């Protein structure tokens, strides 16, 4: 069997059972392949080129280990880009001023998880902007996380130890029968700014159900014109929302963390 940078790991393991030990010996990161379930998930989708990138080793490390097992090596095929994605339009048309760059290598070498630093940066990304993360490997979990939040991503491997990942926040598109206001990422901040110091704060986290809802409605009844109500809550009070709409109030919600949600309620 001839293998090259584009060969997936699964057929290699199928061809020769000792290939598994050979690959695991390259990098401790491949220990996962010992788990049959993970092996099934990863081996069928990962090419040698991707594996070398993920494992932080070179293609040659693979070839050296696999050649003695009877695999023929084709070193001339260059790896197709791992993600096999064409360069998305947003990368092709990048302008310098709309790229927010973040190098997480120092954070990682200091031994801490860069996720919090990244998420802090993500907050400042407006629709249409691009965030560029510089790292030593492809941050797959981050890509998945941000895709859920409406980012498209593009990975550019400069070399084995320098990976640039671009995240582009898509413009919000409206569809459906209910016409919402054109949202922006910092809508919360805009609304908060608009009210300035005319904000009344209440804390309902310590109250038992259904007291939070009653307390909020009570406060709204006594809210002065032009003032917004800022609520510290344990969760999104979903049953309150229709009630607010019925009373002509609008709201914004900001999830701080599990068990902490802030609400901003104001007259339409």
């Amino acid at each position, binding site marked *: 069997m001839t293998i090259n940078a584009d060969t997936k790991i699964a057929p290699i393991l199928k061809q020769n059972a000792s290939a598994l030990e050979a690959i695991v010996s390259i990098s401790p990161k491949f220990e996962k392949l010992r788990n049959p379930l993970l092996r099934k998930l990863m081996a069928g989708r990962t090419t040698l080129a991707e594996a070398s990138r993920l494992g932080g080793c070179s293609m040659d490390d693979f070839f050296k280990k696999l050649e003695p097992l009877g695999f023929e090596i084709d070193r001339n095929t260059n790896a197709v880009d791992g993600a096999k994605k064409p360069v998305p339009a947003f990368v092709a048309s990048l302008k310098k001023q709309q790229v927010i760059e973040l190098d997480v290598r120092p954070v*990682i070498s200091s031994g801490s*998880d*860069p*996720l919090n630093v990244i*998420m802090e940066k993500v907050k400042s990304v407006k629709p249409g902007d691009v965030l560029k993360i510089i*790292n030593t*490997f492809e*941050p*797959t*979990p*981050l890509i998945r*996380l941000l895709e859920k*939040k*409406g980012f498209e991503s593009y990975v550019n491997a400069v070399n084995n130890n320098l990976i640039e990942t671009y995240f582009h926040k*898509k*413009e*919000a*598109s*409206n*569809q*459906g029968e*209910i*016409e*919402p*206001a*054109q*949202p*922006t*990422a910092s*809508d*919360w901040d805009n609304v908060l700014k608009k009210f300035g110091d005319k904000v009344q704060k209440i804390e309902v986290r310590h109250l*038992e*159900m*259904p007291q939070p*809802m*009653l307390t909020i*409605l009570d406060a709204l009844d006594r809210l002065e014109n032009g003032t917004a109500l800022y609520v510290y809550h*344990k969760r*999104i009070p*979903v*049953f309150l*929302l*229709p*009630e607010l*709409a*019925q009373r002509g109030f*609008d*709201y*914004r*919600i*900001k*999830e701080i*963390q*599990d068990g902490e949600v802030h609400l901003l309620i104001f007259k339409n």
Partner: protein
Amino acid sequence: MVVNTNNNLVQNTTHKVVIPFYVYAGLSFLTATVLLFLSDNAFTQHYFQPRTLAITHTMALGWGTMIILGASHQLVPVLIEAKLFSNALAYASFVLAAIGIPLLIYSFFQFQFNGIAQAGAVLINAAVVCFVLNLAASILKSKNKNVHAVFVFTASVWLLATTVMGFLLVFNFTKNILPKDSVRYLSLHAHIGLVGWFLLLVMGVGSRLIPMFLISKYDDAKTLWLIYFLVNGALISFIVLFFSAVDSFFYTVPLTAVLLALLLFANYCREAYKQRIRKQVDKQVKISLLSVAMMLLPLIFLAALIALLLFSFANTKLVLAYGFSVFFGWLTAIILGMTFKTLPFIVWNKVYHNRAGLGKTPNPKDLFSESLFQKMGLAYLAGFGLFTAGILLGNTIVLQIASVLLFITAALYNVNILKMLRHKPLIK
């Protein structure tokens, strides 16, 4: 990258656990109405009949129990202000029940109590055990153990008692493990399920939700505890009476206790209604409040049955009308109303909880169609009324027309559920 999967950016999977139960329940209701249409003549015969059994269990397990299991996984954590102990157990209870229920119903329909029926019974019991364990662990871990949580947990234990008994009845058909034949135990099995599981649970959850939907300050834990002891006392005395072969006159004791509990509960709802802040009560809550009144109908049939039993004369029409008015009347009315007071919020939370800071979000109650809901309500009331009349009159034509109306009810219900689940976010 080292991503700590327990960080707060990872969403909890509650909606993924809850929604399958709702979908399954909706399809079960649809199935039950199709079976009704196909077996109209079963309702002019004796109640111990393959098709009647199949329909009863489609309603009790597929429709009632499944939707309550789904809603409980969502509501109990809210009631006890704590997280659900295990999503895995919740998934397990869904999968086990989802496989077990059709096996059991198919066996009833064929009237064969072989391995298939037994497998169904085992799977359903396994599902209930997962549910009870999950509730127990969630409640034990929480700091807030209130009367509503006690109601729900006790109800779940009665559910387990019901399914264990059902399991014994299924096995008793082939290997005589019980002293008498299975038909003899039917009323015990049915009433532990009805009163212990459905009634106790509906009261426990309803006493929290109805004031909440009405935005009412009313709260009266003392009355709820009284209701709790009345219902449980009624159940225990009923079981004792059942095994002690006394005169049927004594059955008025548990009946009176349940009746008293129902009156107290109806009064509780009335007080909550009187002290409400929300002036306009929406149709979903109205249908649910109507179901509180609808509880009286099965009780009237039951009282008539006991009265007739005193003259040692069992009227099968009344038994059928009683069973029908419980499952298609009271229970269905509650579910029809409460689905649209719970699911829209679950879906809204799923779609918008991390987008709600981005701008104006739609109102959760705009996620389903109000006009479809109204048409469903009308079809339901007409279908239910006609079918009950059809049973009492023994008229198959009336039964046919009524079952078509009930089928339309179930179809509209499912269309509305589907509309909700297919809701696409309006904010990206």
